[in-house]
């Protein structure tokens, strides 16, 4: 969908797909703090700030272009996608802030003490569930891009590698 509005370079698209795979895997690990442990959960959560920043920087042209066009003529899908991305950003911020507020490992390790708030844990749980749903819709709206990019940059090179190998073996 991004490519419909803004053309991105091959290198940028490759970085984006690897970044998205990384974010998805980290998100899955983070959604199960009981399995990963609280320390891993919290440090991964803080590291997500950097990965999400890179994800947004890679989509910067699209964000600016849609922000400019939003009040004027814009396709329904791009409009929906833009609104959904804002919701995801706000909910993701709530998830991160509530996580920082209830931190038991990372922030005390850094010597930071925050005032205790009784709502933050509930907000953290609630926003995590909402992020999961929004991520599902986000993935669905980018499904064509994901399938095309996966096929072009991950599956096809892999296939070519094997067909090359098979060709060489056949020549022998």
């Amino acid at each position, binding site marked *: 969908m991004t490519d419909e509005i803004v053309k991105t370079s091959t290198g940028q698209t490759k970085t984006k797909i690897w970044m998205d795979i990384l974010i998805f895997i980290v998100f899955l690990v983070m*959604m*199960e703090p*009981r*399995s990963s442990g609280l320390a891993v959960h919290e440090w991964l959560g803080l590291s997500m700030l950097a990965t999400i920043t890179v994800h*947004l920087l890679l989509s910067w042209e699209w964000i600016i272009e849609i922000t400019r066009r939003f009040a004027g003529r814009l396709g329904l899908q791009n409009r929906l996608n833009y609104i959904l991305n804002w919701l995801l950003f706000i909910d993701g911020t709530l998830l991160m802030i509530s996580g920082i507020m209830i931190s038991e490992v990372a922030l005390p390790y850094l010597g930071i003490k925050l005032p205790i708030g*009784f709502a933050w844990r509930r907000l953290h749980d609630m926003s995590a*569930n909402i992020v999961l749903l929004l991520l*599902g*819709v986000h*993935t669905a709206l980018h499904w064509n891009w994901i399938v095309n990019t996966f096929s072009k940059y991950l599956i096809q090179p892999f296939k070519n590698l094997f067909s090359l190998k098979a060709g060489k073996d056949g020549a022998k």
Partner: protein
Amino acid sequence: MRTLGRILALGLVFSVVTALIVIIVNASGANAPGFGDGPQFRPGGGGGEGFRPPFDGNRPGQGREEGREAGEFWLLGPIKNVAVIGLLVTAIVWPRSIARKNRKRLAP
């Protein structure tokens, strides 16, 4: 330099959203001890450090309180989350794909 400017712009938006969230949560009174039916303030607990509700994973009703060991079923959670995302993707992408095929078939 351009990237740095963009990072600063993102940081600014992030700070504004964060400030709004903190203001709304504090103004709603939801952070006060005894709000709702959640864990109550434990007097004298923690030598003035206050009371943090115990860490119990992401969702209540799952995990140790049901007698489930984290080590045994650690894959169930990620599988469930992937299933939720997969269901949403299927529910959105499939009808659209069918509609597109029908449109193509009906087109003269």
